[in-house]
């Protein structure tokens, strides 16, 4: 849906501003999305209350990720050695193009006729489905939300709740169009339609593609978290299992999952545990009655090492993709998921996308923030998200200086350091405030289009202060 990078400068920013305006004015959409999140807040709070100390649990989760990310040089090779000892095959991909090529080669070698896939945001990041389809391979998204988005021809709206913006009537119509099912208004029946449709596809598929939530270094296992059972089926029935994961997903100990799995569930979806948390260590073993003959893991860098090289923002690699920061973000709730134009939406997406896809094109995301800090408050691994948005702004100002902004600040310094000039400027400003709206400055016009200017006070603050001082004597 999102056109690729070879476009006019600042295309991403222009698109963001345009889409944000459209979505902010669509109150029906905003109300619907906020209502959909209502249940999440209730169940999340109920589950958090079961923790004897949620804040200490956050500390522990954060520490587990910090210690793994900061020893990736040691733990990544350890994980790979253990995974290979279990019979899995590892493939390294420097970037998206290399990852797509590796997976296409594996699919070709497997002589795949049907591919089934479970939810994997990393595959969205590398636009895997489009590449598979271009080479003539059919691929079915099995997660209900992803399946709906695939039929709609849209990317996920929210990286945990892919179709939270879609109404049941639209899903009913969509299923009617593609699957020929009769219209229904019941979420239950819609879920069953997808279930029935998918069953035979699992049985027929010869390649299953999944993501990974954690890579356990000490045992060489990959951990996959899901609610529906579609990832379990995807890794159970096809002959070849391919998993795609970013290199930052490593944790050192199996035991770390005892903290991270429940916290991912609680922060992400308001559950005590996600329904299926599954550890895979390679293909079917001797003596096991099923499972794939081959298991491949594609380890993707794709600029993650650029984030790693920035100690200030390294903790953004601690992210476990729970999506909690999206759910509380006033910007996300108003502009919606698509406006971001990124694989990872919301506050964490605004932090990492400039690293993954270029600061000059994506810095505007860091400005799409009220800096309220709600994201940092809910992050289960304590990523300092809202400060990183400020760091991005600072870095952008260094690398792509905005001449007008700089000029403005210089003027301000001159004015603010001279009390007489400040007073004179203030007087002029108070008397011309009403005319601001009519000035042909785009920034001002946009700002004032949705805001009402207050009436200017007759006296300046300093005049009022002096007056108050006299009165109190």
């Amino acid at each position, binding site marked *: 849906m999102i056109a690729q990078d070879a476009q006019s400068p600042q295309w991403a920013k222009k698109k963001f501003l345009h889409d944000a305006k459209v979505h902010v004015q669509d109150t029906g959409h905003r109300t619907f999305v906020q209502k959909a*999140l209502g*249940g999440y807040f209730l169940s999340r709070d109920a589950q958090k209350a079961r*923790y*004897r*100390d*949620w804040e*200490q649990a956050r*500390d*522990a989760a*954060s*520490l*587990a990720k910090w210690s793994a*990310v900061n020893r990736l*040089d040691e733990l990544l090779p350890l994980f790979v050695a253990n995974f290979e000892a*279990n019979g899995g095959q590892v493939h*390294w991909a*420097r970037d998206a193009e*290399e990852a797509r090529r590796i997976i296409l080669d594996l699919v070709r070698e497997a002589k795949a006729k049907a591919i089934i896939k479970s939810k994997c945001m990393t595959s969205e990041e590398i636009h895997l489905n489009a590449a598979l389809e271009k080479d003539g391979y059919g691929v079915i998204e099995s997660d209900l939300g992803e399946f709906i988005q695939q039929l709609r021809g849209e990317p996920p709206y929210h990286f945990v*709740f892919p179709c*939270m913006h879609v*109404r*049941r009537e639209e899903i009913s119509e969509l299923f009617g169009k593609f699957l020929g099912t009769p219209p229904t208004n019941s*979420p*239950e029946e819609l*879920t*069953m339609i997808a279930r029935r449709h998918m069953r*035979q596809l699992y*049985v027929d598929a010869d390649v299953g593609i999944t993501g990974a939530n954690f890579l356990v270094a000490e*045992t060489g*296992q990959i951990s996959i978290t899901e*609610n*529906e*059972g579609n990832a*379990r*089926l995807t*890794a*159970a029935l096809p002959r070849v299992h391919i998993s795609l994961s970013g290199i930052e997903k490593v944790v050192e*100990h199996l*035991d*770390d999952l*005892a*903290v991270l799995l429940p916290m991912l569930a609680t922060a992400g979806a308001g559950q*005590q*545990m996600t*329904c*299926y*948390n599954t550890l*895979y*260590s390679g*293909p079917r*073993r001797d003596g*096991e*009655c*099923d*499972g794939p003959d081959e298991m491949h893991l594609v380890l993707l860098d794709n600029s993650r*090492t650029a984030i*790693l*090289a920035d*100690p200030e923002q390294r*903790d953004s690699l601690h992210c476990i993709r729970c999506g909690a920061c999206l759910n509380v973000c006033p910007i996300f709730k108003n502009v919606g998921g698509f406006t971001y134009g990124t694989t990872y939406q919301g506050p964490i997406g605004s932090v990492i996308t400039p690293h993954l896809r270029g600061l000059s094109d994506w810095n505007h995301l860091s400005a799409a923030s009220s800096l309220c800090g709600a994201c940092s408050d809910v992050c289960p691994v304590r990523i300092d998200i809202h400060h990183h948005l400020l760091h991005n702004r600072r870095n952008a100002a260094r690398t792509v200086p905005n001449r007008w902004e700089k000029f403005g600040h210089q003027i301000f310094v001159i004015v603010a350091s001279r009390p007489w000039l400040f007073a004179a400027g203030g007087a002029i400003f108070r008397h011309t405030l009403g005319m601001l709206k009519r000035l042909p400055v785009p920034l001002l016009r946009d700002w004032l289009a949705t805001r009402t200017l207050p009436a200017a006070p007759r006296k300046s603050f300093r005049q009022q202060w002096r007056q108050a001082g006299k009165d109190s004597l």
Partner: protein
Amino acid sequence: MKAAVDTIAAGGMSARDTILLRVREALRLPAPMPHFKSLVPSGGSDIPSPHAGGSSSAGHAGLAILPLDVARPWLPDGGDTPESQLAILANNLEKLRAQMHRVADLSAAADFVLSLARTRDWHRVAYHGHALVEPLLAGVPCATYRVDGADAFDKSALEHCDAGITACDAIVAQTGSILVSSATSGGRALSILPHVHIVVATLDQIVSTLGDALHAAKHRGAGRMPSMLSFITGPSRTGDIERIPRLGAHGPKELILILVG
């Protein structure tokens, strides 16, 4: 820096070596260790900190104190006696809308399975060879399908089974999770493909926390774990349509735990 690494890489370096070199280069600058109030040894507090007594300095010296090998008294409670664990488990399973049936012995368990098969008019029930599972099928009034026999089983046939019966590795009171594995629960598909999943377990398989279950699995595996270990927490579910929770997305719509003893 990245440019320098990529210049080297252009000289025929493998993707693996390039990425590992980028990682090593990136980590030359240390990131500060997070500062947490709760991790400062609090002296007199009953709650042990994850690294009490450990060094609080940043850098690799400070890392040796991990893992957080303590009781984790800040996570949800899993109970410390068999009675409290059972009570927490029962409460969790009820909230998850999983069913739990306690029976005195295996013959009572077999009676229960028999009545299920009869009232629901099951045609075929899938199972695997296990001392707890096989006795349950003695009297069922329908066909049975064993998936871990000498030959590979037929996936379509398993898909048509009404229920799958398995044993498990452990049951976690803290979260109401049932740990199954490819080694002890009849492979990967039996516990996920049929519409109903019946788990039979003994009371002594209940553990307090996820940490306990993972610890036991690691030691049981003795360096070679089963190719799949899965924590099943309630029946399959989805909230993808308007965030309204629904059971039975792709996995079993019903999860029935039979506790023997």
